């Protein structure tokens, strides 16, 4: 996307430092100045810094999971657009409108599959991103002044919760058996909260039963409130990344001493319109200023970002073609399907909820409360406050599996594996009546009417 350089009478005279006769930006810049100009002149690109450390660009540091999550958010929004026009949020017509999307709309079933699998992938990606940030200690501050990476971590945890809520509210919209009973279970967990539980449930449902008020509430949450919240959190999250000086790994490069006292370092002067070069009194700096440590954000960062976004899209696209998204029988309040399972990212909770009904003498605590409210509450609370509870040194930020954080990383991994194990059990080993079946054992035939 090169723009033709406009010729002018004053073209031959050298411009004063920092003054551009005309915009020069291009995604394939031929000079550092042009590269910096791209960042400064472009609305979307101006969020990037002019230069990034090579360390930040590494595939096997961050796996670009944050970008993958953002790409999926973008794709979910874009695929949600046509669905907004085609779906009808009324209990009489919701199921029929989904059937229309599946059968009668051109590319309808593909768009729906993109949306559904995108949602599942996003939950996975967001969680993996959280795991990566935890395991590399990237919620910790480095050497920069005024870094507050713990805020970004908290934002991230909130974004994880909003993502899960988005998925949960979207799950109800097809108004099929899967949706109806998943929401029944979920809102009954909410009602197990002591004192306020039933009121919370009534607020969620817009009544005492899952009906039209519930559907419209979940719909508005799903298309406006939660995406808006996620968008706002996302913007704040991105701003904090810049404010904190980029990825935690970049800090490490800054902390390594230069091999020798460097000569006068070319400094940068920022003007309103771009980057100018000049020299100023010599300053010895850290390796961060090394030529070899950084590259232009445009095109190297943008190209990698394009790879990640387009790559995510390609994978999602292909998945959507090769796999159908499920749609079960129309919602029927009189018949509970057997077995009735939560979406896969809540299956671990469903397992726990099954096993944690506690009887102490004559006093019974519903497993819904322990497994559905207390445990997740504890986990979220622990996650959110961890940056303040962490006692490891600053040097541990931005490194995979540092020695000083070995214990916490192992505990985190064990908990994650536990959750994954419960999810796998819930997916493959639970059959009708939630009885345990080995994966090779067949389930009893599910009877039909005719």
């Amino acid at each position: 996307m090169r723009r033709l350089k406009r010729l002018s009478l004053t073209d031959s005279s050298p411009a004063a430092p920092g003054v551009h006769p005309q915009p020069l930006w291009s995604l394939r810049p031929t000079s550092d100045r042009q590269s910096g100009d791209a960042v400064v002149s472009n609305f979307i690109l101006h969020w990037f810094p002019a230069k990034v450390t090579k360390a930040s660009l590494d595939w096997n540091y961050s796996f670009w999971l944050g970008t993958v999550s953002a790409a999926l958010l973008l794709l979910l929004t874009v695929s949600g657009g046509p669905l907004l026009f085609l779906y009808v949020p009324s209990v009489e017509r919701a199921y029929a409108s989904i059937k229309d999307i599946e059968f009668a709309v051109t590319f309808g079933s593909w768009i729906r599959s993109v949306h559904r699998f995108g949602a599942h992938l996003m939950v996975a990606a967001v969680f993996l991103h959280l795991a990566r940030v935890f395991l590399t200690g990237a919620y910790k501050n480095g050497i920069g002044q005024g870094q507050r990476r713990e805020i970004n971590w908290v934002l991230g945890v909130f974004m994880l919760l909003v993502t899960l809520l988005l998925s949960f509210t979207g799950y109800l919209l097809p108004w099929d058996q899967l949706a109806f009973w998943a929401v029944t279970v979920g809102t009954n967990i909410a009602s197990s909260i002591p004192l306020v539980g039933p009121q919370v449930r009534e607020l969620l449902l817009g009544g005492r039963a899952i009906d039209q008020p519930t559907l419209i509430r979940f719909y508005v949450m799903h298309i406006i409130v939660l995406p808006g919240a996620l968008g706002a959190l996302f913007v704040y999250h991105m701003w904090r990344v810049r404010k904190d000086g980029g990825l935690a790994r970049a800090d490490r490069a800054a902390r390594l001493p230069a091999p020798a006292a460097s000569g006068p370092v070319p400094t940068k002067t920022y003007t309103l319109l771009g980057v100018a070069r000049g020299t100023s009194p010599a300053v010895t700096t850290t390796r961060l200023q090394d030529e070899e440590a950084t590259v232009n954000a445009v095109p190297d960062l943008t190209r990698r970002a394009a790879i990640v976004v387009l790559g995510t899209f390609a994978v999602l696209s292909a998945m959507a073609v090769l796999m159908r998204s499920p749609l079960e029988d129309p919602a029927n309040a009189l018949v509970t399907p057997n077995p009735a399972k939560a979406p896969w990212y809540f299956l671990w909770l469903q397992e726990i909820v099954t096993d944690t009904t506690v009887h102490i003498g004559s006093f019974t605590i519903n497993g819904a409360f322990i497994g559905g409210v207390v445990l997740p509450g504890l986990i979220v609370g622990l996650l959110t406050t961890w940056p303040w509870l962490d006692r490891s040194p600053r040097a541990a930020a931005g490194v995979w599996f540092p020695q000083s954080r070995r214990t916490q990383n192992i505990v985190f991994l064990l908990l994650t594996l536990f959750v994954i194990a419960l999810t796998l059990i819930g997916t493959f080993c639970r059959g009708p009546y939630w009885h345990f079946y080995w994966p090779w054992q067949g389930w009893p035939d599910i009877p039909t009417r005719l």
Partner: protein
Amino acid sequence: MERRTNSPYPRLDRPVLAIIGLVLVLSTVLFTVGDRQHEWRYYQFAFRNAVAEKYGPAKADTVRAGLQQVWVPDLGRADRCTTCHQAVQWAGFEAAEEPFRTHPKEILRSHPVEKFGCTSCHGGQGWAVDVDPAHGPVEHWEDPVLGASLGESYGIVDNTRAMMQMKCNVCHRYDRETKGADFINLGKQLVRDKGCRACHTINGRGGTIGPDLTNVGDKAAEQYDFSRLNGQKTAFAWHVAHLKEPKGLVPDTVMPNFHLSTKEAQALATLIMSWQRAPVPASFVPSVPRTDPRTPDEVVAEERMKTGPGAWFVSTGCFVCHSIKVFGITSPAQIGPDLSNAVEDVQSRFGRTIDDFLAAPTGTMSVVLSRQIILTPEQKQVAIGKLREAFAEYQKQKAAGTLKPVASH
């Protein structure tokens, strides 16, 4: 000379970007092809050829292309069966293979497609446009097409298409006997003869020894106990087996064995499965009378008014205010006097002949005859003639003493 930072990334990343571009193109091609490939495109092509062969290319051009839908808002059904089954309302394809076969005409006369759709009679998933999901049974759609193949799989005796009558009875439930639904009629006969209502409540009437069967067709398949049933685990099969040998499925039952033949058990099972809580709009319920019933006397009297000697007064509207009792015309409003003796009545009241009066009416009649009932001169002559006839009849009846009093309202 502008500086340019060296970077190893273009060499590494540009191939990756190019490959991803190709993968995107591939997935695009895949989903586009997937969207275009539907069996209905082939069936439409084949049907158009069949029409061209039979009726010529001009007629073939009138065959509609693309997805077809019958939308019945009253029943909430959007049926796309006619996308493949295009021959339904084309004459001349009665002997063809499905989906190119003409639909039997007789039933369509009373059950037009625009009013009923297709699936309300045949079953199946109307929304679907591919063969398997449309016909079923597929996972998560419990309403398959009740056609010959399903009937064969159950070994329905005599008529493999009889299961379709299950759908007939969803609306025709309160008929004693429904024309064309022999299987269901057999079932209803058995319910009467074997005395099912002695123990079971059916349609709100019956005993309480056995379960209420009024809406048993809605019962979910999972709520039956299949532990003692061999063969396919369906609610229908359960009912057939239960009717043939109740103790075989429910060991502690008190239901006796009625020694039903297979055909009888299947007919009863079809009937039972049709008892569903399906909300049917009033305009679809067949046996609800469209008008309040009349007594035989009322029928005769109405016929006489419409076709008897006084019919002219009915067709013009005079009878709205005036009775003509000698002709059996009874006015609903009786605002004006009986016209049977108008000839002498007008004379005595106004001192004018009826010819005169009709030509230049006074009072209410001047308003009526100038605004509401406008008679041409020819019609006025007819009126005069009829009034004289009525008067003649009046005099005859008066002389014979058979003058009837006017019925009071």
